[in-house]
């Protein structure tokens, strides 16, 4: 099994005629992702890689049942496209764009709550259930180099570092059930705490790895969930950015979510609450794979 995505998931690509969409669509199809249609406003009726393209999500879902919409849409247009997917009843909406205005994201997430859609992202790289399907940019052209099927779930606020975790585990012969890049922004649709229960319910997943960053309350919320006993599977966590605490406040790195406001979201504190909750916390990134191996009962090396 896996979470959210498998070989049966029917996928709609919004913004299918864009350069990045066309590149990654080819990789998704090659990996076995069941892409059923695309949307490109004003370009309805064309054909991309043998897939029908519609002007509207409405027309697409009328002709093709859809489980997941993936948005290859720039940040400034993401709200429009996401609301279109949500209001047309798409259950899972994956927003890859960086730079979605915070007020737009808040609106998207409010509408998703009201309509019962789940949102991943924004500023997410994609996701992969190894051997089954992949979405967005995750795994790129050669996903098999980084991911193999197995018992480890991965959730990462950094898309790139999720890939590093997959790759490091795969090189040790440890496979993954599903890796979800949850997005680097302050406001995201699905946090660690939202997705951990899915792994808990997934029979294939035996251990979950979290990659955290400074800022937000996502790691703290995950710790609370673990402490509550609602997650019984071992959680191995790494929180990057401790060195930022030695810098003046107000300094921000890459992700906007990394902005540390008023001393909240400190990596040191996040690690402490995760440890207190019973998670296995890696001090160095290199400690992650052996901790995962230990949690799987494979012994560390």
């Amino acid at each position, binding site marked *: 099994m896996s979470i959210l995505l498998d070989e049966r998931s029917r996928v709609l690509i919004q913004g299918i005629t864009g350069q*990045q969409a066309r590149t990654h669509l080819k990789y998704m199809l090659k990996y076995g992702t069941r892409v059923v249609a695309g949307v490109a406003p004003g370009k309805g009726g064309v054909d991309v890689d043998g897939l029908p393209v519609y002007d509207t999500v409405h027309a697409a879902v009328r002709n093709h049942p859809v489980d997941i919409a993936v948005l290859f849409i720039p940040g400034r247009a993401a709200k429009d496209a996401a609301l279109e997917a949500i209001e047309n009843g798409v259950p899972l909406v994956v927003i890859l764009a960086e*730079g979605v205005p915070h007020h737009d*994201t808040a609106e998207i997430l*409010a509408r998703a709550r009201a309509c019962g859609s789940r949102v991943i992202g924004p500023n997410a*790289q994609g996701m992969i259930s190894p051997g089954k399907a992949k979405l967005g940019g995750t795994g790129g052209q050669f996903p098999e180099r980084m991911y193999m099927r197995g018992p480890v779930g991965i959730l990462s606020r950094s898309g790139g570092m999720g890939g*590093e975790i997959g790759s*490091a585990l795969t090189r040790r012969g440890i496979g993954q059930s599903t890796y979800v890049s949850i997005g680097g922004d302050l406001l995201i649709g699905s*946090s660690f705490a939202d997705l951990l229960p899915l792994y808990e319910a997934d029979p294939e997943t035996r251990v979950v790895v979290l990659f955290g960053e400074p800022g937000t309350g996502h790691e703290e*919320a995950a710790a609370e969930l673990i402490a509550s006993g609602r997650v019984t599977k071992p959680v191995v966590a790494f929180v990057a950015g401790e060195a930022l605490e030695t810098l003046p406040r*107000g300094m921000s790195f890459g992700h906007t979510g990394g902005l540390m406001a008023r001393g909240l979201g400190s990596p040191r504190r996040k690690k402490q609450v995760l440890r207190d909750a019973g998670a296995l916390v890696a001090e160095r990134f290199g400690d992650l794979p052996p901790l995962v191996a230990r949690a799987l009962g494979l012994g560390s090396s």
Partner: protein
Amino acid sequence: MTRLLEHQSLLLLEAAGVTVAPYRAVDTPAAAAEAARALGGPVILKALVPAGGRQKAGGVTRITEPADAASAAGRLLGSTLGHFPVTQVLVQACVDIREEYFCALTFDSVTRSPVMLFSAEGGVDVEDLVRDRPDALVSRPVEPTAELPPFVGRELGAAAGVSGQRLLDVADVLTRLYAVFRNNDGFLVEVNPLAVDGAGRLVALSAVVVVDEQAEFRHPEWARLVDPAGSNGWRPLTTLERAMREIDATDAGSAIRFNEFEDGAIACMMTGGGSGLVTFDHLRRLGETPATTFDITPGRVEEKMYLATKAILSRPGLRGLVAGGNISNFIPIDVKVRGVVRALAELGVDAARFPVVFRYAGPGVESAREIAAKVPGIEFYDERVSLEEAVERIVARVREPGRGPA
């Protein structure tokens, strides 16, 4: 995130119908004296810098006689507050303060929505309020609608113990502050204090508006308000940071994020927000400081990598360069490496004397390795060596005996 100067923030509040204490922004002592006379009575002088904590840093002065305004403004102008040179001063009329409230709007990652905060015990630093009187600060998530229904403000004010006509007035101000937050793509709007004056009116004495850069495309008016080269969040941009902004502006196809650190000696160009953090942590763990952090989003990156590498290596006192990032999905890495290597070759970098460690993984790695071989001595690693191990290599190399600056 860009913090507006206080007079710009006050203007946004006024436009939304919030009463603010009369003020003028000036840039000479003479203009300060003139403003003080015009405002009449005692005035407050505040250094206009895009940073908080001005009171504690000595950037706020109260003047009873307008005649003293020039000399007081003169002391502020030309001084440095935090890291910012003071080039403008706000002259603000004093208000007969009877009560002080705290109001703020920002976003909450946990509720994933805007959040509104209010306290009837404002006038102190919010950090102090949270620490000393946490129960006096009330907050609630608000729906991200075009307008805030006034009942939200009434609920919040009532929760903080405000009642009667005052409650309606507070709700009115909160509704207007929400409009400032929403219509200006605010990331933070804070008024502290919102004063109750002798006539019972609510008057904003101070305002902080931080706008969301991710919404810049729909705010052409920000070009007039904000100096993009003014601040990186805690200090003005360095010369190299300004140069990097110019390089970034050469092509909108990808975006550079760059920081420089005064005391660092290892140039760091590890792309990907997360890998930049992991690299930074490990350098610090090993007792080193990066001279730079550098990130670039996918797009037409070769020319930017070339220009950025040249600019970074122009920095004096560097002892080595570590470049690369997490395993790439988007950018063929040979394109990136071509840009970096072109710069190194052009600058005549001898990687035997000036250590260069690459950690690049992803599509194009074989070709990238060949390109890197053009500059002898570059250590090239792929995903079989972790980001942390690459950091360990550059640290070991720069610590070899007999190494000097580039």
